[in-house]
């Protein structure tokens, strides 16, 4: 398993949000500004790398029967640490993500990767998996944020590039609906459809290549 292949999987063919359809609560709930999306993405990536490393290191010690309970405790530990650190050093992010930071515990991506990858692979490969899957998650969030922020508030980079970001559409035009829950469902639906389309095209191209050979 090489890193390049893992990265491609994380970003596109096996993207945690767009292909595996995991962790959708946070994907839809917090993607209203770029600041939120980046912050959430990075927090999850860090937690995912840490929990993958620890779980992979302990994979031979933890008995099978209690593995889920053990994973949850480890994940919850990391989540709380990140929560406390954010509260102390990036209070603005902690304020705007609110209850969704502690809820990373039940984000299926982390438990999912622990079960599907870290519990079967070496520490190094698990760390790489955490990084690539985390980057894939962050990428999906950022795309959602950019679309929803542009259509819903008419700005780009709110919170990252100044408090109000860069205004692209005049204030009276944006469709508020897009930053509401409805917009979350619709945007994610369209993005997943796009991913399915791209993935199918890629698969078809591969097959054509094979046929030519």
């Amino acid at each position, binding site marked *: 398993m090489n890193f390049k292949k893992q990265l491609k999987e994380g970003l596109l063919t096996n993207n945690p949000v767009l292909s595996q359809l995991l962790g959708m609560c946070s994907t839809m709930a917090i993607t*209203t500004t770029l600041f939120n999306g980046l912050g959430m993405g990075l927090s999850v990536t860090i937690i995912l790398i840490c929990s993958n490393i620890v779980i992979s290191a302990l994979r031979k*010690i933890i008995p099978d029967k209690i593995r889920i309970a053990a994973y949850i*405790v480890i994940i919850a530990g990391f989540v709380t640490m990140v929560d406390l650190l954010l509260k*102390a050093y990036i209070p603005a992010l902690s304020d705007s993500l609110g209850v969704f930071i502690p809820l990373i515990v039940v984000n299926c991506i982390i438990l999912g990767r622990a079960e599907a990858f870290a519990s079967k692979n070496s520490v190094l490969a698990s760390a790489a998996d955490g990084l690539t899957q985390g980057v894939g998650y962050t990428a999906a969030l950022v795309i959602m944020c950019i679309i929803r922020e542009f259509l819903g508030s008419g700005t780009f980079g709110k919170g990252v590039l100044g408090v109000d970001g860069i205004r692209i559409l005049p204030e009276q035009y944006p469709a508020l609906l897009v930053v509401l829950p409805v917009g979350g469902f619709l945007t994610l639906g369209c993005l997943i459809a796009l991913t399915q389309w791209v993935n199918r095209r890629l698969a078809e191209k591969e097959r054509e290549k094979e046929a030519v050979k």
Partner: protein
Amino acid sequence: MKNFKYILRLTLTLLIITAVVAGLLGLVNYLTEDKIDELTRQKAETAMQEVLPAQNYEPMETSTDGITEAYRADGLGYVVRVSTNGFGGAIDMMVGIDAEGKVCGVSIISHSETASLGANCVREDFRAQFVGADSALAVSKDGGTIDALTGATVTSRAVTNGVDLALAFVKEVG
């Protein structure tokens, strides 16, 4: 016997993992606790200075629902901290009221309202509407004078109610 050993192993593994996690969390908490407290205090202080600048704030007793703290500010007036329920949870705000019983400033300390909608309640132009008011307030939808934020009537009502609570409280004690 083998079964017993197995169960013991399960329990011990889980116990050790939990203990290590708890220990680490205690450490992180110890390291961040002061910083978080300091930030919370600072935030409240900045808000107090913003709504009614004064040298000293003398704490007062409160027993009203929704009013979490109240201070007498050097004889200039009062600063009241109010918490009301908005759309996404509690909205924590600081309301400054001058010696004549008029609102002289509102500052939102924390909230969990929807971004781009309810979250706009921190905006200057929305908060400025309350300045100068001295009697019961309501949003224009309910026949009052406060223009609600677009698409966030619940949030606007919550802030308005909070300012109302503070006004009523000051009227009672002053």
